[in-house]
């Protein structure tokens, strides 16, 4: 399928729309994770609106790129981005976490076309990507890419490092991992709960090519993915430094918002901030 071409400015506005929907979904659901999905909005916008080959009208397309969300609790950002990309109606986003909804609290592949994996329990995405990559190699498919979005707290899981070892050993060059390096997890800052640094050195030691970027800079995300695709002899890990709660002043960098939704008042405040682009313009719904 031909990709939509959006300018960086248009992509940034798209990411802002997606953030607004994340706030609305979470407030309506009354539970769920706020900080991660807001912080990931730029990465998901870049992936779905620029980086990936995919077709919302043909989700089983055999040439499509694959996107695995390993830390399933961040799925509101995936749902919101998929809706904006045309996988399903935007109004369905408000069914998040409700009985009978295709938008389960944690993603279930079999319920919603376009999801590539079921996740929630952490640490599995990279290994699934390795399996997919090995299958593609056996099938002589060399032009498909697998993007795996992981949390940084998730890297506490041993399963991640088992997958990292295998991908390094097998030189699975069509895997591009993206770590949402927002420095928070449920119990507090990552470096207090379970230190991850030297994170770049760890991945390099496992045989990966590592890029470090500002994960809230859409142009940097697009460039890093392009560079990742140019490196064929190694899997690539992008350490994307993001601001948890990005775009909503009172949520940014506060680990308490990891697993909490906004209440009505907080949502109103957050939406006002997003609609005015942080006070830069006048909101439409004032």
């Amino acid at each position, binding site marked *: 399928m031909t990709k939509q071409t959006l300018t960086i400015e248009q992509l940034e506005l798209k990411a802002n729309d997606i953030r607004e929907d994340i706030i609305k979904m979470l407030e309506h659901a009354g539970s769920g994770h706020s900080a991660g999905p807001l912080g990931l909005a730029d990465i998901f916008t870049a992936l779905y609106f620029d980086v990936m080959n995919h077709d919302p009208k043909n989700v089983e397309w055999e040439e499509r790129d694959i996107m695995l969300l390993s830390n399933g609790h961040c799925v509101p950002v995936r749902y919101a981005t998929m809706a904006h990309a045309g996988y399903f109606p935007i109004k369905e986003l408000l069914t998040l976490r409700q009985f009978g909804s295709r938008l389960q609290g944690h993603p279930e592949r079999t319920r919603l076309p376009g999801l590539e*994996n*079921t996740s929630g329990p952490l640490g599995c995405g990279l290994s699934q*990507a*390795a399996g997919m990559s*090995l299958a593609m190699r056996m099938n002589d498919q060399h032009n498909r890419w697998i993007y795996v979005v992981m949390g940084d707290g998730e890297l506490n899981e041993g*399963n991640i490092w088992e997958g990292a*070892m295998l991908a390094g050993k097998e030189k699975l060059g069509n895997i591009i991992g993206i770590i949402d390096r927002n420095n928070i997890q449920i119990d507090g800052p990552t470096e207090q709960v379970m230190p991850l640094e030297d994170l770049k050195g760890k991945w390099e030691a496992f045989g990966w090519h590592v890029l470090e970027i500002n994960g809230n800079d859409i142009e940097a995300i697009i460039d890093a993915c392009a560079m990742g695709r140019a490196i064929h002899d190694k899997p690539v890990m992008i350490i994307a430094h993001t601001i948890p709660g990005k775009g909503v002043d009172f949520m940014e960098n506060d680990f308490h918002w990891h697993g909490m939704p906004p209440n009505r008042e907080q949502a109103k405040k957050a939406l006002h901030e997003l609609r005015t682009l942080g006070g830069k313009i006048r909101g439409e719904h004032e």
Partner: protein
Amino acid sequence: MNIHLIDIHGDIEQLPIRKGFGKGLLEAGKRDVNVVAACADLTDSTQMSLFKAEFPDRFVEIGVAEQNLVTVGSGLAAMGKIPFVSSYAAFSPGRNWEQIRTTICLNDRPVKVVGSHAGVSVGPDGATHQMLEDIALMRVLPNMVVIAPGDAVEAEKATLAMATDNRPTYLRLAREATPVITTADTPFKIGDAYVFKPGNDVTLITTGTMTYQALLAADLLQKDGISAEVIHVPTIKPLDAKTILASVRKTGAVVTAEEGQIIGGLGGAIAELLAEECPTPMKRIGMLDRFGESGAPNELLEHFGLDAKHIRLAAHSVTDRK
């Protein structure tokens, strides 16, 4: 229906059940290019070595990493492969249950989890390696099929059947040489139980290595004047309730036997079925909520009561309660 079996009174060949798996996997690989295999550093032990030698490009060496083993399997299946992933049962599904639950069962990917060296008959390696809880662990998972073949010939058939079935499946294998009681002509279909010996007074329901012991017990019981029906249940889930209930309604007494925990295993499955559909005097032979220990396989089987002698005693006890 008469089922073709080897005469257990004559010379009987002994083969490890896992050998049948190795042969079956090689054949499945020849029949379908999408059959692939991955192993966690036990390629010879689990008999995947035959497949690996023939199809090196379709084999993945995972190393000692069982969580990775099954999640890589999930990824292979996502791309249309039919992955068989093997290790010792104590490690897979022993260590990686949640990954099997989320990335295989809930995610509905047809990964074939193969656990070798199940049961106390592993012998000298001791309790850590004698997997007894695998049937229970796998049986509770929605979407999962659970198979424990009775001998090497049946294991080969089960492996071939799994390769053309689109469900997640657990295959339980044993280490030691086990009497070969079935032949190329003995039927095997996933989900079917088989009456290996007809009888009227008590139903002996068994799986895996214990089916041979049940046939021996039926002989002993014959001499005691008790006519035992032996039902071999290679597929523990989905359970062939029809065949089991028909037999139990006729005999009115049941003994189950398996080389695993009686809690949650075959005995548990039959007890659940009968409690709801046909309450019947019943005894379960198996590991009685305890671990094994080092020893020679036969010594251990006798010590823990996993043999024909104990099945016979249990059969007397349930027929007395009728």
